[in-house]
């Protein structure tokens, strides 16, 4: 349980948001060219990091917009919030 600073609405309770999981997984440009292994990688395999994770959130009970968050999954501290399409902050690895 934590607060998320929506880039459009400001700080709101996490229960207003829906988690979209790991961010920056790019949808395959040529789906028909993909091997089964590559599909599995895209659809199912996740880093599932304990520590600093880049992820997507949707303010589902607010502005309904998607955005990105950098969060430490070992203590739920949010380190950075940035809009869709923006480059992820480079000071977290």
């Amino acid at each position: 349980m934590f607060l998320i600073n929506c880039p459009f609405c400001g700080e709101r309770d996490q229960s207003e948001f829906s988690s979209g999981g790991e961010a920056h997984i790019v949808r395959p440009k040529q789906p028909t060219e993909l091997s089964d292994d590559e599909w599995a990688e895209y659809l199912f395999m996740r880093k599932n990091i304990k520590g600093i994770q880049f992820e997507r959130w949707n303010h589902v009970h607010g502005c309904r917009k998607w955005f990105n968050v950098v969060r430490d999954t070992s203590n739920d501290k949010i380190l950075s919030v940035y809009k869709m399409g923006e480059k992820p902050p480079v000071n977290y690895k």
Partner: protein
Amino acid sequence: MKNKYSVFSLIKNALSQHENWQQAWGNPEPKKEYDAIIVGGGGHGLATAYYLAKKHNLKNIAVLEKGWIGGGNTGRNTTIIRSNYLWDASAGLYDHALKLWENLSQELNYNVMFSQRGVMNLAHNLQDVRDLKRRTHANRLNGIDAVWLNTEEVKKFCPIINTSPDIRYPVLGGTLQRRAGTARHDAVAWGYARGASDMGVDIIQNCEVKGIKRNGDRVEGLETTKGFIKTNKIGVVAAGHSSVIANMAGLKLPLESKPLQALVSEPVKPIIDTVVMSNAVHAYVSQSDKGELVIGAGTDSYVSYTQRGSHNIVEETLKAILELYPIFSRMKMLRQWGGIVDICPDASPIISKTNIKGLYFNCGWGTGGFKATPGSGDLFAHTIANDEPHKLNAAFNLNRFVSGDLVDEHGAAAVAH
């Protein structure tokens, strides 16, 4: 068994004021090398070591545990045991476990307090009714006991349920598996630890794995907080931390780790003599032998390793509990906690080899691994010893996410484990 527990040992030790009981399992320092190392000293890991030693004659085994044995999800679940899963592969896996549960106290010479008090799953809408009836039929075709109860029969089986048609999610019926029930979770870990230790397995607590040493496509050993340990077979049974261990070997798994919560009330006199689960409103309840109501909630929606969980999840669950059981409206809750569960996209576990030789994973049990503890250990031990899966866990391989041959138990089979 070196120190067999019996009524005679109880009397003998009573005469010496219970001061001479032997330690139930050893506390050794790690050796330099083992034939196999199990990472994770929960129920599944200890059971794996137990069956490796007992059935596959591997004696030089270690179980490494980061904290204390049974301190992770083994000690954090709501202890529900059942096998009424929809698909054939799941039915085979979970009923294998249930059959082992039925004789586990005798097998381990340790009372795991297995109580076949029945598990009832409630239906709250027409789709629930169709799904649960279908599951009942599927279960019976697989030789698993299951019956459909209408609303009156639900009320008769568990009289404190509010079956009024006027509530938000009325009870339209339910399924009952009478062979299902609960067990004492700590005792399962302790019983397997004692049994394994007795056969020479080293149980090493406070020993965290820091790295996996690889030589090309095979494993060579583990870097731990107690130094490097050589081995060519590693079985990882690390539940919520499976991905963390996999990352050390450069592997990615199809898992997301999320907090799952449970809570218990103050102890009261016997009021509910079965386990009642409800998927649609995501609340399940039973009563422990101490008299506490044991209540399970849902998972948080996001990845987290915090072992806490959000308040709003508990609130939703208690709302549902209060509507279904108005008699509990003045109960006080004593404790709440969270465990980190590793959830697979198809809500089925992975008991599998990997493409790294000597590295095996038993993970992805998600919100319902406790019920499978003996079966999981037995089948994983078989997989490690033979480098081939048993026919009961062949479907639960890692490759199913590539082939598409998923065992989709999400929503299909009473997912509120």
